[in-house]
């Protein structure tokens, strides 16, 4: 054979480009190790250029080289670099800022139709629960399982029921109580959201169930002449918590609806599109539930004045509604 064949073209090609590849590999390792901050500005500028060089190397290698391991290496390196170059890179602070300033209210606004439906389900269920228990106290046991009632049942004396409303627990263990409430409620609302995927129905049931027990509780207290007081007891945190539940349910409904009726897109695309807004709204729901947990666990136990409870609950509701729905200047 002729001497020119002694060194393969693909081998020469590799020797010439290898430096770039190794450099990119080293930079990516540094970036992926969570040490993005330690990359200098020049190194950050270098990555896209090296990435393009590797992409071009990959095209050339596929055309001229038969070294399978080389091509596999370039594909793996190119894939990693692609995800870095086109991946998420806004930092957490910026992301949080834009979440609170724009994304969260916008996501909730985009769910307005589903939110209305969920609110309607909750209201109707609450009315139904109220009327059922008002007419016949036996319904209470059917709606409110024993362990959930925690002694709030038709057998209890009026005095005992009143005590629950104004029990201050002496201020002990309140923050732990608030935390427990928050983690429980957050888990339930995430479940309500996730269930939306199963064609909306479980979500609607969960929201309805919430409404039923709410109505039943109010009816029980109402029948003892404590209607005004129970509403204050519920409202101080309930305006925040119920709104969060309604939004979580709405987010679930949106996804379920997109899966059932995808329109002219494919089911996958429709679900992914619906998930974008509802995911943001759900992250917000978790924030709302933290606040609701604090209000319920601490605020309600310390503030026993009915009017103060109403005032706080009402103010929270106004704040949320203003935050979500008040028109604001367009993004510049």
């Amino acid at each position, binding site marked *: 054979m002729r001497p020119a*064949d002694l060194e393969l073209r693909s*081998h020469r090609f590799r020797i010439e480009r290898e430096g770039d590849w190794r450099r990119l590999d080293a930079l990516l390792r540094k970036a992926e190790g969570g040490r993005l901050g330690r990359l200098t500005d020049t190194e950050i500028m270098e990555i896209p250029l090296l990435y393009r060089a590797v992409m071009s190397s990959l095209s050339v290698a596929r055309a001229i080289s038969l*070294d399978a391991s080389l091509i596999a290496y370039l*594909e793996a390196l190119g894939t990693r670099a692609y*995800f870095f170059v086109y991946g998420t890179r806004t930092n957490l602070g910026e992301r949080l800022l834009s979440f609170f300033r724009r994304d969260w209210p916008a996501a909730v606004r985009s769910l307005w139709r589903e939110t209305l439906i969920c609110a309607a389900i909750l209201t109707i269920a609450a009315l139904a629960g109220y009327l059922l228990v008002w007419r016949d106290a036996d319904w209470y046991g059917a709606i409110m399982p024993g362990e959930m009632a925690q002694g709030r049942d038709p057998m209890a004396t009026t005095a005992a029921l009143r005590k629950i409303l104004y029990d201050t627990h002496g201020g002990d263990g309140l923050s732990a109580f608030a935390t427990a409430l928050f983690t429980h409620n957050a888990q339930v609302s995430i*479940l309500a959201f*996730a269930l939306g995927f199963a064609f909306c129905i479980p979500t609607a049931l969960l929201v309805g169930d919430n409404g039923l027990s709410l109505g039943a509780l109010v009816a029980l207290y109402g029948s003892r002449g404590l209607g005004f007081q129970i509403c204050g007891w519920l409202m101080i945190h309930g305006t925040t918590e119920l709104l969060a539940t309604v939004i979580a349910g709405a987010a679930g409904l949106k996804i379920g609806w997109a899966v059932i009726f995808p329109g002219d897109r494919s089911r996958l695309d429709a679900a992914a599109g619906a*998930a*974008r807004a509802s*995911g943001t709204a759900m992250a917000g729901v978790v924030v709302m539930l933290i606040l609701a947990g604090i209000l319920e666990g601490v605020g309600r136990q310390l503030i026993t004045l009915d009017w103060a409870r109403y005032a706080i609950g009402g103010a929270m509701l106004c704040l949320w509604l203003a935050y979500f729905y008040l028109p604001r200047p367009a993004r510049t």
Partner: protein
Amino acid sequence: MAGALRPKSGPAEPRGRFNRRFVTPEGVDLRLTLGSAGDRAGAFLLDLLIMVAALVILTLLAAWLALSVGEKGGEPVLIIWLLGAFVLRSGYFILFEMSPRAATPGKRALGLRVAARDGGRLTGEAIFVRNAMREIEVFLPLSFLAASSATGDPVQGWVAVLGLTWTGILLFFPLFNRDRLRVGDFVAGTWVVKAPRRALDVDLAREGRNTGPYAFTPDQAAAYGVKELQVLEEVLRRGDKRTLTAVADRIRGKIGWRSSPGETDTAFLAAYYAALRGRLEYRLLFGHRRRDKFDKA
């Protein structure tokens, strides 16, 4: 010539069941490989182990703290434990997948990562949604499982079994679709792809030189095609003695090679690899990609 009619460099690469076309804005197809169901399950089990271990450590730590601070200071410990458990259950996957590598430790160990199906950015919302769905995929079946074993009431038991069946469908959802999408992936518009770190292997063609005792004639160097070349590459990289001998004998027989004294199998194969690759790459430049030894291109 028959070769001219053949598509020049068409999809000659082997395409597996899990290979997907994925064209970057630069117009290069990255040929992503999806994570198989086994990889995914393995990664999840690994993550579950880590989570359980972390929970055990957290609980022990809380218990130790509670014992050392006594009755009065127990409350902050309880809060820390509650929040820690919540973050672990709901935040573990989300926080890790928001990192630059978009993968939990389990996924990293198996060379997997999460990516947006449309090739765009992987957003925080998508990560949140895909992991919120774990509630119905994993935790709901678990709670039904616990319910079905705990209750003595036969009706409750049957309800739990039905619930378990229904949620089981969600759990095994990845097996029912081609892209191995979990319900969370389906909803969030994501998928899990392989993005392993690979080291650059040595170039075998540099080691085998077509000189000295190993001067193959053009006919000898043209006995095989690309498929055999890549099998040979695999054998050489693996370096298993018995396979090397078997393959060397096979090739010697096929090309009618007469061994010189002192010739080792490894040296022969390395030299033949270089010669075959040289020949095939030379033909490749002229647009002929000889797929295998039966290909007459």
